[in-house]
């Protein structure tokens, strides 16, 4: 609830100034708390009161403050944030303010301005009266960076959420949760986000394909429930290996048995896609006819494949420069309202670091350590679910189909 502290000074008791101001606040449906009051003892003495005024919305509060300023309340002046120039490209001043993933405001030239593109572990750069959340590597020498904590406020997430699904967010991560109910709640959330025009982000690891859950993710994409996909070389490779050879890491997904010479299928898949000139071209040439990547191309899903040191190939679509990959991910995160992280550790942590705390985030993994790790890296808004990827996606797809 937005609030502002005001001071009222003078003969505020004799003059009825204090009761008048408090009446005004209540008449305007605001609320107040007297934080401090000193009453003069003699009739020549003045009195002072410090009152915290709150209202439902910022404009409503501004209206109340405007009115009571005219009858003697003086808003307590707020300090501007301290700014210092960046000493070099890619280096913040020593005392830089380090961001969280919560909505953040900066007091600049006498007013509060919102920090754009908020993500955790960055700095705040002020440019032309606007505040930008900036990763350390992106700051340019001489740019003005917010230092210290004065003049910075973060808005905590509201406690009550409409959807009961996300009330589990406060509980610790455990495998002992009523998954069926959570998944049905999640399906409702997903539909609701799409109805409002929000984007859904899926971060997926190769286990999605290995466990045979690729078809469910593919279904979700075809139903229009995925707008952005973050993954690595592995997910794309094994998905296309399955599309081309019916195996994932050489295991026939329909029979559940290793195939003879199957161990080289993933390399053959990579080679075929490289030969075709990339995933999109492979689809256009009719080489790739099904699977997650095929669905992404057909449905226009924005895909970022970020590589790592252990990658085979990699596929031509994989971004191998990590800073470049981070930038690509940051661009696609805009407008995302819900993030689903499935069976992926590094890509999930990387994504969690970039997401504002207002994005509802679900992390699903069979290994509790992964879910804990994402939460411990600061993405405290997540709903963690320790379960098998295949059964989770099957249930979710089922719930989304059922409507």
């Amino acid at each position, binding site marked *: 609830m937005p609030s502002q502290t005001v001071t009222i*000074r*003078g*003969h505020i008791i*004799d*003059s*009825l*100034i204090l*009761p*008048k101001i408090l009446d005004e606040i209540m008449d305007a449906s605001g609320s107040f708390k007297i934080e401090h009051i000193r009453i003069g003892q003699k*009739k*020549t003495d*003045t009195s002072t009161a410090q009152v915290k005024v709150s209202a439902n919305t910022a404009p409503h509060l501004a209206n109340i403050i405007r009115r009571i300023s*005219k*009858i*003697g309340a*003086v808003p307590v002046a707020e300090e501007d944030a301290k700014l210092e120039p960046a000493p070099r490209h890619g280096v913040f001043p020593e005392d830089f303010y380090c961001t969280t993933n919560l909505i953040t405001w900066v007091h600049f030239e006498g007013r509060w301005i919102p920090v754009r593109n908020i993500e955790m572990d960055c700095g705040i750069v002020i440019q032309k009266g606007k505040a930008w959340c900036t990763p350390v590597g992106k700051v340019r020498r001489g740019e003005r960076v917010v230092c210290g904590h004065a003049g910075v406020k973060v808005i905590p997430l509201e406690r009550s959420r409409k959807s009961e699904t996300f009330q589990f967010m406060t509980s610790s991560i455990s495998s002992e949760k009523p998954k069926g109910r959570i998944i049905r709640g999640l399906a409702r959330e997903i539909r609701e986000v799409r109805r409002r025009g929000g984007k859904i982000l899926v971060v997926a690891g190769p286990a999605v394909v290995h466990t045979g859950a690729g078809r469910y993710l593919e279904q979700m994409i075809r139903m229009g429930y995925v707008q952005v996909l973050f993954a690595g070389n592995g997910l794309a490779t094994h998905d296309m290996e399955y599309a081309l050879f019916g195996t994932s890491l050489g295991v026939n997904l329909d029979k559940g048995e290793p195939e003879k010479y199957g161990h080289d299928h993933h390399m053959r898949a990579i080679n075929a896609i490289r030969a075709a000139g990339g995933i999109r071209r492979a689809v256009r040439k009719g080489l790739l006819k099904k699977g997650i990547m095929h669905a992404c191309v057909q449905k226009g899903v924005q895909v970022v494949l970020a590589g790592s040191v252990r990658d085979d190939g990699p596929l031509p679509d994989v971004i191998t420069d990590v800073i470049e990959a981070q930038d690509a991910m940051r661009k696609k995160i805009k407008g995302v309202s819900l993030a689903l992280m499935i069976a992926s550790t590094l890509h999930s942590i990387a994504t969690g670091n970039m997401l504002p705390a207002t994005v509802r985030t679900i992390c699903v993994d069979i290994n509790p350590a992964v879910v804990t790790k994402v939460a411990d890296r600061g993405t405290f808004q997540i709903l963690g679910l320790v379960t098998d990827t295949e059964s989770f996606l099957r249930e979710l797809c089922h719930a989304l189909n059922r409507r």
Partner: protein
Amino acid sequence: MLTFLMCRPRYYRVAYEINPWMKVRHPVERDQAAAQWEVLYKTLRGLPGVKVKLIPHARGWPDMVFTANGGLVFDRSVVIPNFRYPQRQGEARHFGAWFGKKGYRLIRIPSRFQFEGEGDALKLGDTWFFGYHFRSDISSHQWLSEKLKARVLSLELVDKRFYHLDTCFLPLSDSSCLYYPKAFDPYARKLIERYVPNPVAVGLRDALKFVCNAIAVGKRLVVHKGVSRPLRRTLEKMGFRFIELELGEFLKAGGSAKCLVLRL
């Protein structure tokens, strides 16, 4: 001895509109205005125990004749006004210079506060009644209450025809006043009723004749003519006598007797 500061109207006219009384299309008859002012000046000088000092009228500041807004005087100190409208802001310099020359201690209010002198600050007994909203702001009261070391009660004005406190409130003695209740918000009305033992409320007709803008000298009230009979009778019972003058040319700018004098 009661001393007033007045300003002979050399450049007085209605050149702009900053209150509902002022209409540029109703120009001042300058000769008549001069004559009306002279009658007021002579009347005051003729009263026992009254002295009048004069400040020269500065060109370009027609409302300077309303010296009540030129400052607030107490204990050989003067609070220099910060006028709300630019049309009057230049007067402060001339009043400041005059008071400085006469040896007054000058008190300057921070420029973020507005305060229009005695027009919005009247003493009754040992309490100051300050008006705010149209011309002075309440923050100036808070600032001044520390300087005055006396109780300051702030009254919110709500009728723009009565834009200064001295147009709707007149201390008559330590225990009584004239006031037009509807010029004040309910809290201010309550304050007047609580702190003034015998307040006399006037009706709209008298209020519009600026009866609350009378100059009180002992039991004599110098006022623009046209006081209603019932009010006259009430005040006569209290021992007051009206001295009625024609001040119509000054009403055209929204001022009457009291606006034309500043108590030194």
